[in-house]
């Protein structure tokens, strides 16, 4: 190999983030999460499981915000519909069936996503954001007031379905196995999403975020990509909703309120948009802050957390992951 070629190869190897490094890190984190229910007290075990679920929600929202450049305040609607869809399955069909809950939840979320997708192709930027916000409020009002079907303010409670393959076996979940189930679903989702975002499809989405007119001019049918993006995002958010329902055995309208969507956006920004991992970190960070602050300040934890968030928007807009990346590259 000529000296020049060797030099180029060396530079390339150093400059590109090592794939090996990523997988090693991934394996370590995964191992820690698998071990978690075995070593942590119940409260923290539950906390980690919830971080995983919210992390999935945050990831789904990153598809829209980070990759396609469409800021959606409507994720609470997708999440909520997934949750209520699962509730419907678990309440109406006896014995309660996990897979049916997943199906109902995903279908409900997909229906809402189709609705939002239709609008997403017609509205830009701020108008899209406000509309998604309005959508989550519409669903909130419907759910809140249609007491007969949705239980109104009090929501719905139901029992947790067992992990079952009809005809083969049926094991009720223990806290550990539930955690591992959630972990499996979230990890699989992450890997799938990662694959998709790195594919040509994902590249086009990023092209839409960077410069929509140019992407269109090159010949891509931007509307179709946006629709798929919204559907993808909505389905994974709905999946998070189903997991939440299964974990907590209740569904409540609070989760459909637009403030939840706002919190999701906060996690995305805090963690770093467009990284898939970032929003999960952001969610964990936010929830940890909330936990810490509420020990000292009870309900007013949002005051310091809100201040931290606002400061981050101004000074660290690339989020924690972006910040770390920069530090590591220096």
């Amino acid at each position, binding site marked *: 190999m000529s000296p020049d070629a060797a030099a180029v190869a060396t530079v390339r190897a150093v400059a590109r983030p090592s794939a090996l490094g990523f997988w090693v890190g991934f394996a370590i984190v995964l191992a820690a999460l698998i071990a978690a229910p075995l070593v942590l007290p119940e409260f923290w075990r539950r906390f980690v499981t919830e971080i995983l679920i919210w992390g999935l929600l945050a990831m789904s929202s990153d598809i829209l915000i980070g990759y396609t450049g469409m*800021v959606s305040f409507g994720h609470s609607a997708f999440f909520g519909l997934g949750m209520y869809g699962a509730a419907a399955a678990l309440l109406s069909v006896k014995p309660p069936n996990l897979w049916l809950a997943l199906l109902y939840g995903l279908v409900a979320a997909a229906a809402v996503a189709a609705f939002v997708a239709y*609008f997403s192709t*017609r*509205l830009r*930027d*701020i*108008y899209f*954001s*406000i*509309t998604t*916000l*309005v959508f989550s*409020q*519409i669903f909130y*009002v*419907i759910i*809140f*007031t249609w007491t007969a079907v949705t239980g109104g303010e009090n929501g719905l409670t139901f029992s947790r379905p067992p992990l079952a393959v009809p005809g083969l076996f049926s094991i009720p979940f223990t806290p550990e196995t539930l955690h591992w189930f959630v972990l499996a679903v979230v990890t699989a989702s992450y890997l799938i999403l990662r694959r998709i975002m790195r594919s040509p499809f994902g590249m086009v989405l990023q092209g839409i975020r960077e410069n929509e007119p140019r992407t269109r001019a090159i010949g891509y049918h931007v509307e179709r990509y946006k629709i798929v993006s919204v559907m993808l995002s909505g389905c994974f958010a709905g999946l998070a909703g189903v997991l939440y329902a299964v974990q907590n055995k209740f569904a409540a309208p609070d989760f459909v309120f*637009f403030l939840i969507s*706002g919190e999701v*956006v*906060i996690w995305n*920004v805090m963690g770093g948009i467009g990284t898939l991992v970032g929003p999960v970190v952001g969610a964990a960070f936010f929830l940890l802050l909330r936990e810490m602050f509420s020990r000292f300040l009870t*309900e*007013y*934890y*949002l*005051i310091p*957390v*809100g*201040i931290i*968030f*606002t400061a981050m*928007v*101004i000074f660290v*807009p690339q989020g924690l992951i972006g910040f770390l990346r920069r530090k590591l590259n220096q």
Partner: protein
Amino acid sequence: MTIPVDQILIQTLNGIVTGMILALVASGLTLIFGIMDVVNFAHGELFMLGAYVGTTTMVMSGNFWLSLVVATMTIALLGAAIQVTTLRPLLGRDPLTTILATFGISLVLQNYALWQYGPVPRKILEPFTGHFNFFYLEYPWYRLVIALLSAAIITALYLFLKFGTYGVWIRATTQDRIMAAAMGIPVPAVHTIVFAIGSGMAAASGVLFGPLIGVNHAMGLDWVLKAFIVVVVGGMGNLGGSILASIFVSLLEAYASLVVSPAQAVIVSFVALILTLLFRPTGLFVPTPK
């Protein structure tokens, strides 16, 4: 199902009164957006804090009008402080960041109010009671006064913008921020002052509206959502449009609450927004550019 005529009349009046207050809130929002391209998510909280300052001043002084003035001034100053510390550094960045920053601020302000004032709603007493006769019905004087006062404040704003010295500066900055600066207009100061004016207007609305409902820390949420809807339906940056839209939407909601519960009547405004965005995206009352 027939609805008695007098209920329709009452709701018409209620719709107009609520519409005027909404117009006052929305004018501040649209002013801020028109000039600075800032979507002020914290606007509802400024409304709410204005109402709270109003309650405190009422308790100390017993004078409603004094409370109105004090609340407006205080919140205007707060708005100026917020703009200088958090929004000025964001000038020129992606508009998404201002939405996020103002959202963060709204969370802080909301919870601050909860912390300071507690969860129990407070009341502002009406400055005068008594009803007047509207056809054969009785309608409270105070509500009429709110509508008139809101109209007066909005008119004052309009006159200031059209004829005042600094009004020209503000309008020039709205149209072309770069050339305004090239003409020596201190654009950053103009932005701060406009934000302060918008905040003050929101606070005034809060105090005026206070006697109609309880003052509590979450009251801003409903209003900010409605105000956004109205600003979009009326045409963003269009003062006249947002006023018309405010009254239009409030009337629709008032009529709707004759048929469904008030909690459900809000869907009317949501539907109005969606229809507007689909068919007349520049604003219901703005002719669509060809």
